[in-house]
């Protein structure tokens, strides 16, 4: 076990509380830096998507995890970022400019969505954000002069400082990684400043936040704007990675995937957003694997266990049929959401913390360590 002795206010403000953090994050960073020279191009591609999804995850975490405002409309913010970038590309606007413009515009729209959302809570807010996303989807499909409607738009290759950056190159991966790291650092900075604490205060008790001088409406709008802006930035990278965008890429399903990112990762932690992104990006290759290889493997196992040839083939067909069922992905998402909400509300990161503590305290770990006390005092009267 490690005991920390704090001797300075800096000790509470620092990003890395002790040298252990520097070592572990340092090595993680080193691994991420050599990754493009080691991993296959397919895995590199997935890693780029992890960076983009994690960036959106952090954005959603700011709004939902820290400020307590649910949103099922983040696919729309991603779309606005992506379309702004591609639209500006037509006028030969350089990357840094359209990147910033996309983030800013999405941030402004986020703030505009935040205003009507001020009066809504919980499920009503969810419905409002879904409606917003539908409206955006509809506009993208209909406003053909700008968005080219359902035909979609081709994304020109990224060019940075006069050199073309291919979407499969290590440089593009480093760009996405940099955006993710900057987003995380910015969020951590926010969390150790008055604004981040105001967000958390609003999440836990609007009444108390107000009576401590927090302008609740203003900070909710700020949270919407920041969250949307970050998602807009991610949208630009998303467009470049896909090299083609059309309205049906930004549907409710994508918003749900973002929610799953923070739900699985853990709604309170930045680590969680990254873990959740890894999960959601890797579920596709996993399902493909399930479809292609699993039936054969299981049939093989069945055969060696003494099942007849016909029976093994039967099993193989059965599993193949199951794995290629339509909507299997949606069903898996549904089951995952339910299981996490019921059994692991703090997400994968919460589970990791428990495992870590188990080894730190071994053999003194008590099963009830993480059991929450229930205290029924909170008043619902002054909501």
């Amino acid at each position, binding site marked *: 076990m490690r005991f920390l002795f704090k001797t300075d*206010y*800096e000790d*509470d*403000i620092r990003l890395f509380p002790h040298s252990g953090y520097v070592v572990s994050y340092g090595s993680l960073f080193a691994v991420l830096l050599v990754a493009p020279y080691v991993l296959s191009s397919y895995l590199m591609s997935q890693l780029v998507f992890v960076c983009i999804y994690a960036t959106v995850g952090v954005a959603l975490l700011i709004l939902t995890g820290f400020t307590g405002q649910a949103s099922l409309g983040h696919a729309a913010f991603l779309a606005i970022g992506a379309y702004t970038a591609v639209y500006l590309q037509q006028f030969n606007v350089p990357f840094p400019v359209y990147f910033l413009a996309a983030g800013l515009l999405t941030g402004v729209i986020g703030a505009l969505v935040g205003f009507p959302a001020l009066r809504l809570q919980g499920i009503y807010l969810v419905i409002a954000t879904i409606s917003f996303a539908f409206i955006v989807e509809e506009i993208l499909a209909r406003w053909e002069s700008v968005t080219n409607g359902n035909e979609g738009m081709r994304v020109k290759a990224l060019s940075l400082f006069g050199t073309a950056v291919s979407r499969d190159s290590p440089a593009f991966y480093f760009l996405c990684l940099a955006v993710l790291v900057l987003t995380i650092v*910015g969020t951590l*900075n*926010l969390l*150790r*400043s*008055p*604004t*981040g*604490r*105001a967000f*958390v*205060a609003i*999440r*836990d*008790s609007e*009444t*108390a*936040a*107000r*009576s*401590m*001088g*927090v*302008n*609740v409406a203003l900070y909710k709008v*700020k949270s919407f704007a*920041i969250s949307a802006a970050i998602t807009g930035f991610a949208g630009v990278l998303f467009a470049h990675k896909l090299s083609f965008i059309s309205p049906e890429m930004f549907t409710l399903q994508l918003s749900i995937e973002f929610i799953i990112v923070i739900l699985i990762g853990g709604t*309170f932690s930045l680590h969680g957003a990254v873990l959740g992104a890894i999960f959601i990006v890797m579920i596709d290759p996993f399902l493909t694997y399930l479809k292609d290889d699993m039936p054969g493997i299981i049939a093989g196992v069945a055969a060696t266990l003494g099942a007849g040839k016909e029976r093994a083939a039967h099993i193989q067909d059965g599993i193949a049929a199951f794995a290629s069922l339509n909507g299997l992905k949606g069903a898996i998402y549904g089951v995952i959401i339910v299981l996490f909400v019921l059994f692991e509300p703090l997400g994968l990161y919460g589970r990791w913390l428990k495992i870590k503590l188990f080894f730190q305290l071994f053999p003194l770990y008590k099963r009830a360590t993480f059991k*929450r*006390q229930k*205290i029924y*005092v*909170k*008043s619902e*009267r*002054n909501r």
Partner: protein
Amino acid sequence: MSYFRAENLSLRFGGLKAVDAVSFAVEKGEILSIIGPNGAGKSSIFNLISRIYRPTSGRIFFEDQDITEEPPYDIARLGIARTFQNIELFENATVLSNLLVGRHRHSTTQLWQELLFLPSVRANEKVHRRRVEQVIEFLDLEAYRDKPISGLPYGVRKVIELARALCSEPKLILLDEPSSGLNVEETDDMSFWIRDMRRELGVTVLMVEHDMSLVNRVSDRVIALNYGRVLAMGSPAEVQQHPDVVAAYLGA
């Protein structure tokens, strides 16, 4: 002119007059208690002052400024802090972050500065943390500093709420039943803190309280309330002997 003044305050919930033409004044440096049976309208007066409710009629003045129409978040900025009868803490945050929210009215940094955590933000943070540390020491909360609120016992939460209010360096503090749910020892501590608060920090105290021994120990003056109306006002002894007050408490 008085330091704080409520004039003809009324609040109706449909047909119910929760607060009915209440007027009173608080002098600077005073400890004034409001007593009364359950449902008398005590908490409602606090909620009117902190603008959780809007008065049906009447006006509120603080330091000669009419604050009746101020938005709720500005009340804290003017220097009025409060605690809640049912404890409203930020459950999923640590004690330290709860107290730092109390510093909110003193934060001057802009969003973009915070995103970059510029030296000015860092300097501000240090000031906030020093102040918070002083309050933690004042109320003996060192042991709980880094603990999340969920999981702390009721008595400690009460003290943390008081601490959060003090972190905002208020001029006037509203305490809604500071001793409810506390045991005898904790109530003793509370009575010392309330007096020290005035002596060392120069805070004016307006307090709602059921525990008469605490009221007698700390208050300069007492207001008795029933059915939203003021029954009596004066020294603790005077008010408790007032025939209307005795009748109200006996349920006559």
